[in-house]
């Protein structure tokens, strides 16, 4: 958008984006201004393709119309693409994010695009793997999602499974991809087929985009593996060589930008999927494919919080959560918070537990297992009734607490359910080498 002055001038002179214009000594196509920069400076595309910023000048004149801005058409419903009747059919469910965005090469703007043809074009080896049912259910940046979004996605996944798909790919923004993967792990009961939550760290307009390998490996994984679990499937290294399928409850984005940002935490990846030769190496135990009918348990308690303890934290912060139904704390080390200092959280935590609000303890070290009794301060916490949840990731604990609260009758129930492994969120033992 240009400044009000320019917009008004353009309207009066009937000049639109895409028109060839003359401004001072420059001639070129008037471009839209996308988000950034000085709104009182015009963006002109020269004939050699370069854009430059040009000071607005009332002598600006239209030469002719070069092209018109086309509004991207939102596509609803399922699009099918059949490459070969003998191949299995899988579904690709689009939710938005970098992976599903399409660049308008004229303007540089991005828009959602999730036509089956587009995906097939972009990932050419899909035609050797599976027939596709593509369905864009929403267009959302992953950081904008809310817990209800998970339920919506779970329902779409169940619908596709129950109409016969052999495996499901959910494309997703990467920032909160592991939240959705963990949520789907809990919400989809009796999952009979593989579900891969897939994202990309480099947008699809680049020749170097990781979309191609990630979608290809995910398609191979959901079409051909025997793993009936929810996994994240993204690059396993900075090379374009293989992806890791990581259990949804054990996966976490551990880097802001690298393509191998997702790591299996406190667990081995379930599989290593080689891109070029399509080999799938199993690295961990898993639940097998089955004939059950998948159900969505969509009842979640959203009044739950994930709170990080930090040095110098004012215990009064916890007062805000008095109206909550449960909180998960990211403690330090084995699961500590200030216990004996003047900023001790103990009185407030004690009050919450007494009021029937379960308090769950995880660790901000991310890697490793919490422990309720090694140190005196830990014993104080566990004696209060704080629920230590072994090696569960903080985000996973937060989602699990939302999931079990509607089912638990009392704090004892919550404790039992939180400390019992349901879908791989707690491991009994940690292998010496787990994720390398």
């Amino acid at each position: 958008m240009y400044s009000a002055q320019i917009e008004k001038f353009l309207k009066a002179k009937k000049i639109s984006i895409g028109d060839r214009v003359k401004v001072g000594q420059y001639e070129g196509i008037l471009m839209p201004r996308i988000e950034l920069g000085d709104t009182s400076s015009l963006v002109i595309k020269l004939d050699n393709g370069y854009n430059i910023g040009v000071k607005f000048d009332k002598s600006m004149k239209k030469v002719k119309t070069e092209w018109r801005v086309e509004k991207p058409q939102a596509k609803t419903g399922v699009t099918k693409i059949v490459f070969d009747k003998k191949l299995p059919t899988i579904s690709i469910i689009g939710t938005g994010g970098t992976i599903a965005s399409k660049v308008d090469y004229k303007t540089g703007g991005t828009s959602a695009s999730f036509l089956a043809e587009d995906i097939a074009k972009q990932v050419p080896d899909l035609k050797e793997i599976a027939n596709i049912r593509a369905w864009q259910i929403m267009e959302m940046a992953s950081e904008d999602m809310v817990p209800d979004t998970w339920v919506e996605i779970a329902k779409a996944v169940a619908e596709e499974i129950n109409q016969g798909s052999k495996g499901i790919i959910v494309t997703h923004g990467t920032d909160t991809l592991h939240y959705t993967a963990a949520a789907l792990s809990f919400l989809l009961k009796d999952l009979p087929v593989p579900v891969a939550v897939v994202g990309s760290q480099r947008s699809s307009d680049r020749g170097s985009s990781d979309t191609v390998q990630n979608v290809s490996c995910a398609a191979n994984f959901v079409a051909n593996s025997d793993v009936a679990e929810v996994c994240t499937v993204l690059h396993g290294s900075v090379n374009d060589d293989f992806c890791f399928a990581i259990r949804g409850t054990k996966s976490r984005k551990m880097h802001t930008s690298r393509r191998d940002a997702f790591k299996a935490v406190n667990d081995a990846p379930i599989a290593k999927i080689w891109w070029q030769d399509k080999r799938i190496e199993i690295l961990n135990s898993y639940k097998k494919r089955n004939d059950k009918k998948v159900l969505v348990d969509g009842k979640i308690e959203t009044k739950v919080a994930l709170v990080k303890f930090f040095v110098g934290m004012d215990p009064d912060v916890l007062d805000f959560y008095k109206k909550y139904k449960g909180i998960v704390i990211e403690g330090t080390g084995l699961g500590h918070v200030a216990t004996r200092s003047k900023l001790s959280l103990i009185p407030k935590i004690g009050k919450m537990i007494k009021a029937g609000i379960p308090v769950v303890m995880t660790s901000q070290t991310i890697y490793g297992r919490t422990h309720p009794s090694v140190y005196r301060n830990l014993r104080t916490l566990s004696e209060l009734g704080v629920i230590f949840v072994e090696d569960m990731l903080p985000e996973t604990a937060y989602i699990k607490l939302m999931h079990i609260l509607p089912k638990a009758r009392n704090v004892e129930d919550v404790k039992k359910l939180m400390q019992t492994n349901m879908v791989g969120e707690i491991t009994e033992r940690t292998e010496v080498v787990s994720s390398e």
Partner: protein
Amino acid sequence: MFHLSEDYSKLGLKAGLELHVQLDTGKKLFCNCSTKMKEKQPIEIVERKLHPVASELGTVDQAAQFEFLKGRTFYYQAFKGESCLVDLDEEPIHPLNSEALTVALQVSLLFNCKIPSEIQVMRKTVIDGSNTSGFQRTAVVGLNGYLEFRGKNVPISQISLEEDACAIIGEEDGRVMYKLNRLGVPLVEVSTGLLVGYTPEEIQEIAYMIGITCRSTGKMKHGIGSIRQDMNVSITKGARVEIKGVQELGIMAKIVEGEVKRQMIEKAKEETRTVLPDGNTKYMRPLPGASRMYPETDIPPVPVNTKYLAEIKKSLPEPLTKKLQRFEKELKLSQQLAKEILRSDYVEVFEKVKGVEPSIVASTFTNVVKDLERSGVEISNITDENFMDLFNNLAERKIAKEAIPDILRMLAENNTKKISEVAKKLGFTTLTHAELDKIIRETVKPDMPFNKAIGIVMSKVRGKADAQTVIKAVKKFLATSA
């Protein structure tokens, strides 16, 4: 055989030049890596594929592009301090390097260009793997300028600031190896308008003038590969052919001549050709178009406000083209030597030297340095201060000019950094007149022919006295003792 002494304007010779000059900034264009390119041992090798992208759909045969890329795997060598996650396409770019932008704007002003009010970085699709992202970032920083050349204005159509690509190491069975350290080094690209009515020699001369105009900023890299030239050449009965990657200025005229000959014999079509070592060209790929460009959206456009521009204008360096004239007229350097010193790393220190014949200083910085480099001497070990010290000693006649090569060699190879010490070590301290006369008396017989006498004395005092002094003293001796 064609004889092209005939009129090139009759043949309708038209050419366009594109010069790419590496900037010697502290950091790369979009990240904080060093631009030194000194590391030898890679610390990591990363494997990548590239995919056909939508920008080319419809404009270029996508199937062909897919086939091309399917058969290719790219390997990138990462070097400590010289390549980072940005270079590896694993981290978004940082803001445009302001030092590089300032230099690029200086270049634009030196070529009398108009400066856009806002610099917009573009992505130019490149699928040969030389850019890990699949595109090269480039921005226009100047338009519609000119270069004064022999009383005429040569049109300079555009100045761009762009990131250099990876240097290729080799290719075998579709596996291409690249070095990441050159990727992201800032380049200034100078494009001329159509050059009509010039001979191949003049075109080469214009390329030289463009090169030294860029160098006027004092911020350009030197050495092999630091300037790369592309050109397009056509004659009336031929077609516009782009020739890529001319690294040596001296063969430009020959390439233009060769291309004119080729177009007179073969039926030329519009294409891109690359330069073979002998100066001939071979086909490379179809001509690229504007459809390869789209905006870089990871960083905002950079405004060039009037205050910033005024500051740059105020501190604009003297164009080396002016210096060239001055060096010839005032310092009485030959045109050849004046050009060479301007192209060397040493213009600034050259100008600081006082009290020594300019041609001696200039040829030290050009011929002597080049000879030493060729024989394996690490000239970069010698600082500007060392050179100043050297010429001060020469001005005070403490050393003779004949001793310069040996002194520089020792300087480069040893820790001794004082010229007087080096000269003493080498036995190159200048003789006093009395000492010289003593040697003459001992070695020259009064009836000796002059040339023989000079030869004998010079062999005794080489490096300890300069030839002029020896000649004078021997003359005097022969005249008085005869």
